[in-house]
């Protein structure tokens, strides 16, 4: 049974800064040989399942975003039977839909010096040398196939008058390799995957369970064999069985309460898998996106991103002098500080996200921020409008400008936009090998749910690329090896003791949540946790701050289990219960994030430790000590987790101090 009782005991909680060091991860299944040949080699070495036998295998896919939707459709096309789950009312609403800017591909259609190797290099460098080379190279190789696939599906990418595809630039690169569909690239790619999935649902090869949320993983004899899920309409808890389980449930940015994630995006699927044996890698690697609309007050429920593509033509600045509160249009040119252009002349406004975010924080900390509370910087299109004309700016960014105006009631064609960094993406996630398999055999993780290719910082327009690469191309090739090597698994049903135990634990957890009947709402706890995380595990982290967070979080958790109030019952549509159950997992995951951030006493990418910076204030890595992925093993509730290191070896891209100056 669940042991939450110790959470309510204030006096005897353990030392949450402690951890054990376990055995290093020896084998990632990445093949040897020249890097450009490894993916071919792995596919050749993988065992296959005969097409006639595939329909005998069932695969569970949790999530219907770019990774999950693409994987479900492709596995079904190959002949497997797919059981697919999403908490939304339709698979078309997964949060990939909100991605705006674009998708990278090394097509070199611009003839501007791009290549697979350059995309590989940019991604390893952009990730501050904390990603696995073999995986990143495969991603760059597959990027070109993704564009072909999506065009064939009818994704309406932006085109030029000659009828060919248009591209634009994104942060951290000097080529124009980002394909886009106005400011709605994620929507269009997701609808492409959704439509491919819909075709399989109609064909009966995919059974779709919408409004059904995974609450736990079923592991039998050491292998992932199914999930426990809750029907969000009736409240019914059910078990589902398969030969393999694929988690495509997205990232965990909502730990911070305020983020650009959808309101219901959550960490339950990956966290429950972690508790059942899947290692969780680099949980502290979170991305703070530099261009979001600043918050307006305590009522704020989420933050809205403005696409990074705006940095192509918009110029970022703050007043040169502290406390200059004149309206932006009255501040003359020579009293403005275009700080990114000043500090990073060669990349200018297009430096990577982590650098742009930190620079914004620095100028605001100096007292030069603009807008309410001084928590904002200007993103100004006046020059672009003069140069390109309003019509072209409208064509390129119109929908983003409209969105900004709707939220702020300010017209960005006339007044510069105000932006501020916000939590956006989590590079960390379930540890996976080269096959995208977790440490639980038969359990795979794809898309943002895994930790794979972005290292310590993701470049813009690379999440869509990775989600679709995993879903359309990588997983469908690697999962056959697992299935073929495990041809006759014993059948499992709801009466198996391992299943009844997980079912009972799930029911028990929900029952406990309903039984507390305290005096605080789920949101009030979520908000409190988010404030602690943003302050101590946000854009800048310190040893002392993280220790404070590791002291506070267990207290909030204890408070939660004593005072939470969830109205209604479990046997009905109950959004408060859904929320409270997700917060249970955030409260545990948050602690691991802080512990990971504390143990990694270096700065790298989005993980900035104030103790570790160069004289110019840039992130200072310590490769000799920390050139590894940190994979954490769950050892029991209230017990110190175990750290397993996967050493990162760089054969092709030599680690250097990142420079965008």
């Amino acid at each position, binding site marked *: 049974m669940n042991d939450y009782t110790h959470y309510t005991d204030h006096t005897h909680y353990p030392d949450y800064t402690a951890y054990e060091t376990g055995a290093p991860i020896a084998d990632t299944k990445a093949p040897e040989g020249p890097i450009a040949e490894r993916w071919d080699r792995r596919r050749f070495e993988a065992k296959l399942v005969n097409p006639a036998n595939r329909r005998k295998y069932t695969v569970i896919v949790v999530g219907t975003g770019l990774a999950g939707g693409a994987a479900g459709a492709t596995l079904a096309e190959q002949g497997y039977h797919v059981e697919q789950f999403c908490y939304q009312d339709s698979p078309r609403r997964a949060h990939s839909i909100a991605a705006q800017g674009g998708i990278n591909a090394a097509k070199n259609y611009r003839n501007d010096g791009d290549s697979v190797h350059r995309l590989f290099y940019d991604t390893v460098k952009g990730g501050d040398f904390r990603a696995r080379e073999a995986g990143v190279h495969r991603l760059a190789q597959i990027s070109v196939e993704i564009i072909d696939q999506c065009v064939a599906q009818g994704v309406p990418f932006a085109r030029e008058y000659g009828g060919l595809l248009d591209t634009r630039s994104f942060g951290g690169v000097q080529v124009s390799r980002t394909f886009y569909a106005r400011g709605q690239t994620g929507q269009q790619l997701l609808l492409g995957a959704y439509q491919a999935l*819909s075709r399989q649902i109609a064909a009966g090869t995919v059974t779709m369970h919408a409004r059904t949320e995974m609450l736990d993983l079923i592991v039998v004899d050491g292998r992932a064999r199914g999930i426990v899920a809750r029907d969000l309409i009736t409240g019914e808890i059910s078990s589902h069985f398969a030969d393999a389980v694929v988690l495509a449930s997205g990232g965990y940015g909502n730990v911070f309460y305020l983020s650009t994630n959808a309101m219901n995006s959550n960490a339950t699927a990956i966290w429950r898998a972690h508790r059942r044996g899947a290692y969780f890698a680099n949980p502290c690697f979170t991305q703070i996106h530099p261009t979001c609309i600043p918050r307006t007050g305590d*009522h704020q429920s989420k933050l809205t991103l403005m696409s990074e593509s705006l940095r192509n033509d918009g110029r970022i600045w703050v007043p040169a002098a502290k406390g200059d509160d004149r309206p932006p249009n009255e501040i003359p040119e020579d009293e403005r500080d275009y700080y990114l252009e000043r500090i990073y002349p060669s990349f200018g406004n297009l430096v990577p996200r982590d650098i742009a975010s930190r620079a914004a924080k620095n100028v605001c900390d100096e007292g030069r921020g603009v807008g309410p509370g001084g928590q904002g910087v200007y993103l100004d299109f006046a020059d672009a409008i003069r140069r390109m004309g309003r019509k072209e700016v409208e064509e390129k960014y119109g929908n983003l400008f409209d969105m900004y105006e709707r939220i702020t009631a300010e017209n960005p064609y006339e007044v510069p936009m105000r932006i501020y960094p916000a939590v956006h993406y989590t590079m960390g996630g379930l540890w996976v090998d080269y096959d995208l398999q977790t440490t639980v055999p038969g359990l795979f993780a794809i898309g943002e749910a895994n930790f794979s290719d972005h290292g310590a910082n993701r470049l813009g327009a690379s999440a869509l690329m990775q989600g679709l690469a995993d879903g359309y191309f990588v997983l469908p090739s690697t999962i056959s090896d697992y299935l073929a090597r495990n041809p006759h698994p014993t059948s499992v049903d709801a009466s198996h003791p391992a299943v009844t135990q997980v079912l009972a634990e799930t029911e028990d957890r929900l029952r406990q949540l309903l039984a507390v009947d305290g005096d605080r709402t789920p949101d009030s706890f979520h908000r409190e946790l988010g404030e602690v995380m943003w302050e101590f595990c946000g854009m800048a982290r310190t040893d002392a701050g993280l220790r404070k967070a590791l002291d506070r979080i267990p207290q909030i958790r204890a408070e939660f289990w004593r005072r939470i109030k969830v109205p209604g019952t479990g046997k009905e549509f109950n959004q408060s219960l859904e929320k409270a159950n997700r917060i249970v997992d955030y409260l545990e995951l948050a602690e691991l994030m802080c512990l990971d951030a504390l143990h990694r006493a270096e700065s790298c990418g989005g993980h900035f430790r104030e103790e570790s910076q160069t004289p110019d204030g840039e992130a200072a890595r310590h490769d000799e000590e920390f050139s590894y992925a940190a994979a954490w093993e769950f050892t029991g509730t209230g017990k110190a987790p175990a750290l397993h290191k996967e050493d990162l070896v760089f054969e092709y891209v030599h680690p250097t101090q990142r420079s965008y100056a």
Partner: protein
Amino acid sequence: MKLKLRVWRQRNTDAPGAMATYEVDGISQDMSFLEMLDTLNEELILRGEDPVAFDHDCREGICGACSLVINGDAHGPERTTTCQLHMRSFKDGDSIDVEPWRAAAFPVVKDLVVDRSAFDRIIQAGGYITAPTGAAPDAHATPVAKPDADFAFEHAECIGCGACVAACPNGSAMLFTSAKVNHLNVLPQGAPERETRVLDMVATMDAEGFGGCTLAGECATACPKGIPLPSISAMNKEWLRATRKVRR
């Protein structure tokens, strides 16, 4: 601001529903409409009452989950999604009616939440291009003239929220269906399935219990993404062309 809300409460699909009256205070102009409902729900939970159920997710106007009829208008007084509607569109002391989408094909699940799975089944009937993974030619093998690409994009913007159905006096899904038909049928990649697509999608739309179209035009006025009314006539042309061409 202080507001009076009249909200549709219904325990489940089979239970009868009714409007219930609530008062909310301390509402800021900068709040979104859903944040205003969050405020109400926080109070209801603390009072031990059942909070108002409503669908929402991205709160950025793109996922299509939110779906409220506000003072009789789908998504309220502005041309946007409910999540992007802000309280500055209302005045202190206003009385606001909040109801779910009302259409025979969208049964109420609870309170303001409805079942829109009929939309998914329309897409499943043909709202796709058959392009199995791995079978694609190079993306530049088939150029698409910019006006066609722009036409496709304009229709592909549909977020599947269902405001068109909620706004229509007949509860028709013609704007939703035509958006997808036009997006795919104008593209060269969509040509091989052009006829079966429109015939099958329209047949499914009819079978799902959506009403007929009388070109009232309310759908296009309510659409937060600006899918244009001529989309419907373009689909009708596609449908006529297909009935002449296809023998079944």
